[in-house]
């Protein structure tokens, strides 16, 4: 294990006058500069980008710059961290705890400032009252992505000791279905494209090979830095000769630069994957040795794939059969080749099978655990955090009450979360039991993650007697439904740790170093610690302060924060072909950590959880094929949620420099469709289906084809009315929320996957303009405090 940071490689564009080799903290021109490897807030995936934070004598952050000492980002930075000051000192940020009478929910002027002591007293009183009456399972914690608290299981297992930690997106349609597919098929947490992140020499390291081909599957890594992957590693590799295959319904910059762009109908990915497997097997392009020695169930997979020849997939996906075959050949012939598989994989009912065909493609081509293919961790890598505190804080009896654990054990046991769709039902019906207390941490479900957000809104207001919001800003969800607000510290106001890609692949980890005073705000870890000490002190006896907790939870006591923070970023040790040495199995045996010891192309775990052990294609629940009768009313396939550089999900709308990049919610419409329907470029349109409607601003573009509409997600308008008004909701969030059109209850058989990227809809122009007044946004949020 490395204990000293390796010097970063200088980019050619960096001047000779630079800060390479500077310590973690230094002085420059009267300013104190702190180097940090940051993760959230502002919300983002754990890439841990390197930042230099410049603080003046008065303690104010006056400048942010990318740190050229970071081994992966090398000084580069995206717009969202460039605008860090505008987030930290935003006039709409709230830095004091607030409370509000539950009868005044939704009314912005009814919040009353209070002390931390008062807020925690109130939480303690309500927690004791509610859990005393209904049991600890009556508390639900809504979590999300991109915030430390959003994945902080100890909030549930140690602070509140409730089994109902809940990511509130139908079918947990984000990342975890892919993790589940990997875990069940290979026993590996997540095979990431190998971009040499852990190697000291990076792309020129002698251990590394540049992939000949990168296949991007349902992923736009450049704006999203998905799950902690540094997106622009793809352009680094393109410059070094990597060629691309893109599987995406939309024309993106990457797909336009790909050798093959498989522009499929949204939601049909599994058919395409099966056809590629079939082509590779029939043409004997697979890695015969790897399949013979390290895979299980190849014949069964071959037989299954043969039911989906390219000619059949061509009809389903809307791509020429020869084009599919040619792309499959290119991927199979390339050595090494890596797949970057993304959110679109999860966002379909058929998502677990989509994940399955992708892992099978990686396996039969022998690209798993190979330099420049898919990089994987050994049995000792990864986080210490899975299930942290669960046995002691919750235990088997209370754990058995987790919402959905009987119906969806493959979901609930894997991620230790209440199943999202059934949690909504519980909030609506009190079945299987009443849920009366709630908390949002890293979650803004009414504006962002949840399908049918009004339904969630009504269920939460109906069900919860007391609700806590933890955030930097008053979000629409907090405005609508919370009774106490706890102000969260940003990443420049606290110490902490981050593991790239949550530690699911061996890359690097780093220290989030505090640069300025938190000014009354606290970190998620601090809040969890203080709440826990009050509510369930037996869980926190080992910890005297939050650093003890960080060292145990994040660093597994192998390391201390004190040792880490001066190094800022440490690359992890990477090795390859570990299955040949017994490093992937707990018992030390050769092969993989699965029941057969091999990669299970025929997957017993899928069967155990009630699904088919082999991949199969299933039409989306609403589509031109499965619901032809609806196509007269809703003739377009709706795909949602493509990422932007300006925002992380529902965050950043109050940052003028970022909002200016994307002032209004955009719906992409093909030029032919726009002509036919009389939609002008920039005209506001109503997008609607049988579940609901939203108004968005049309962008006429060939990025989508004539059958497809794409709409952005996560919209609310911090400059507009904060009150929960009937039609539009707080900050007008329901007006333009595309999730009004996305349902709950259409998850896959194991409980994972939901059709967020493959619904149907119609669109019509409206007369009214809802254009954002940027002068108003600038006037409200431009002057920092």
């Amino acid at each position: 294990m490395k204990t000293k940071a390796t010097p970063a490689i200088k980019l050619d564009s960096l001047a000779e006058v630079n800060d390479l080799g500077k310590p973690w903290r230094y002085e420059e021109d009267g300013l104190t500069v702190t180097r940090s490897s940051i993760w959230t807030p502002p919300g983002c995936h754990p890439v841990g980008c390197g930042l230099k934070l410049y603080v003046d004598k008065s303690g104010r952050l006056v400048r942010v710059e990318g740190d050229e000492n970071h081994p992966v980002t090398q000084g580069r930075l995206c717009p969202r961290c460039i605008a860090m000051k505008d987030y930290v000192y935003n006039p709409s940020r709230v830095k004091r705890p607030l409370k509000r009478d539950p009868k005044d929910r939704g009314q912005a002027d009814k919040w009353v400032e209070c002390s931390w002591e008062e807020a925690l007293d109130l939480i303690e009183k309500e927690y004791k009252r509610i859990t005393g009456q209904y049991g600890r399972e009556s508390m639900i914690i809504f979590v999300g992505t991109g915030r430390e608290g959003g994945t902080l299981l100890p909030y549930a297992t140690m602070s509140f000791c409730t089994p109902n930690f809940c990511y509130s997106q139908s079918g947990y349609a984000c990342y975890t279905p892919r993790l589940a597919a990997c875990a069940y098929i290979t026993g590996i947490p997540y095979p990431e494209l190998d971009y040499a992140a852990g190697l000291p020499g990076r792309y020129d390291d002698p251990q590394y090979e540049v992939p000949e081909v990168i296949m991007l599957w349902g992923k736009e890594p450049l704006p999203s830095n998905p799950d902690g992957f540094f997106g622009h590693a793809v352009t680094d590799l393109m410059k070094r000769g990597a060629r691309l295959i893109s599987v995406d319904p939309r024309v993106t910059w990457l797909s336009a630069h790909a050798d093959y762009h498989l522009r499929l109908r949204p939601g049909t990915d599994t058919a395409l994957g099966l056809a590629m497997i079939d082509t590779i097997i029939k043409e004997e392009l697979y890695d015969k040795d790897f399949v013979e020695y390290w895979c299980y169930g190849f014949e069964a997979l071959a037989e299954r794939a043969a039911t989906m020849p390219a000619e059949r997939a061509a009809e389903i996906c809307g791509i020429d059969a020869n084009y599919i075959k040619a792309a499959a050949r290119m991927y199979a012939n390339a050595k090494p080749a890596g797949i970057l598989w993304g959110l679109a994989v999860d966002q379909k009912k058929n998502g677990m099978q989509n994940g399955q065909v992708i892992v099978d493609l990686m396996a039969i081509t022998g690209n798993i655990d190979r330099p420049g293919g898919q990089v994987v961790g050994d049995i000792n890598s990864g986080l210490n955090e899975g299930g942290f505190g669960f046995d002691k804080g919750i235990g088997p009896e209370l754990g058995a009450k987790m919402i959905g654990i009987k119906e969806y054990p493959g979901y609930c046991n894997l991620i230790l979360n209440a199943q999202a769709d059934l949690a909504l039902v519980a909030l609506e019906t009190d079945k299987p039991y009443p849920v009366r207390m709630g908390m949002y941490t890293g979650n803004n479900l009414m504006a962002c993650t949840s399908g049918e957000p009004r339904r969630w809104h009504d269920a939460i207001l109906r069900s919860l007697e007391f609700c806590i919001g933890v955030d930097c800003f008053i979000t629409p969800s907090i405005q609508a439904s919370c009774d106490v607000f706890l102000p969260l510290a940003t990443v420049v106001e606290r110490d902490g740790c981050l593991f790239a890609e949550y530690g699911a692949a061996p890359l690097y980890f780093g220290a989030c170093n505090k640069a300025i005073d938190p000014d009354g705000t606290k970190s998620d870890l601090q809040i969890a610690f203080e709440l826990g000490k009050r509510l369930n002190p037996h869980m926190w006896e080992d910890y005297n302060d939050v650093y003890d907790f960080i060292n145990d939870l994040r660093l597994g006591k192998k390391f201390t924060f004190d040792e880490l923070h001066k190094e800022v970023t440490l690359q992890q040790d990477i090795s390859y072909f570990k299955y040949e040495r017994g490093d992937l199995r707990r018992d030390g045996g050769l092969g993989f950590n699965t029941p057969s010891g091999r990669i299970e192309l025929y997957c017993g775990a899928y069967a155990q959880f009630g699904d088919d052990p082999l991949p199969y294609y299933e039409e989306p629940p609403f589509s031109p094929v499965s619901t032809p009768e609806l196509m007269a009313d809703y003739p377009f396939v709706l795909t949602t949620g493509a990422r932007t550089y300006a925002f992380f999900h529902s965050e950043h709308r109050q940052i003028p420099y970022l909002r200016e990049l994307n002032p209004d919610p955009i719906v992409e419409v093909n030029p032919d469709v726009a002509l036919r329907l009389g939609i002008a470029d920039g005209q506001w349109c109503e997008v609607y289906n049988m579940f609901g409607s939203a108004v968005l601003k049309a962008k006429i573009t060939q990025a989508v084809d004539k059958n497809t509409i794409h709409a952005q997600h996560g919209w609310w308008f911090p400059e507009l009315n904060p009150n929960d008004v009937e039609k539009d909701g707080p900050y007008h969030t329901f007006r333009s929320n595309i999730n009004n059109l996305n349902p709950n209850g259409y998850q896959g058989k194991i409980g994972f996957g939901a059709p967020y990227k493959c619904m149907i809809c119609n669109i019509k122009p409206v007369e009214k303009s809802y254009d954002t007044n940027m002068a108003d946004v600038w006037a409200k949020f431009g002057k920092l405090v």
Partner: protein
Amino acid sequence: MTPTWQMSGRNSESWCSMTAYGLLIDYEYCTGCQVCEVTCKEEHEYPVGKWGIRVFEDGPWQIEEHRFNFNKIPVPTDLCDLCLARTSIGREPICVHHCLANVMNYGPVEELAKKLNNKSKQVLWVPQFKPYEARGPFVHDPAKGRRKAAHLEVTKNESAERMAAQRGDNRVEEI
């Protein structure tokens, strides 16, 4: 203190003799992340609506089946001063520092021009901060327009009076 636009001004006497600096951009790999736009605004405190560099997008439009044109090209504006405050102490402009795709290079135009020869899909910009101001205040050249008006007597023109009288309208007396 000399305003930056004068120091980099093209109309200054020394323009031809001084080294011109520019931005070489490899737009084959520019992904359009817009970090150059935002970091420039932070660096110069340009408000909403003002920019030192902009990313223009050409596409996607279809060239033929399976092939689209989709290029992103950063263009410095009239508010780009090539980060004089940074470059004067030997650092690179802030857009170059943060460029996610690492496609921007700063340097003397002469050196960058040689690099232009190395690969296709590059563009070399030589920006001018506030080009109108850079021309300097208007100063009349005393060497020009020196001809003085001649001092000669002019007499009354009777033929012009006759021309008015010959007009056919009845308001001639008013002329």
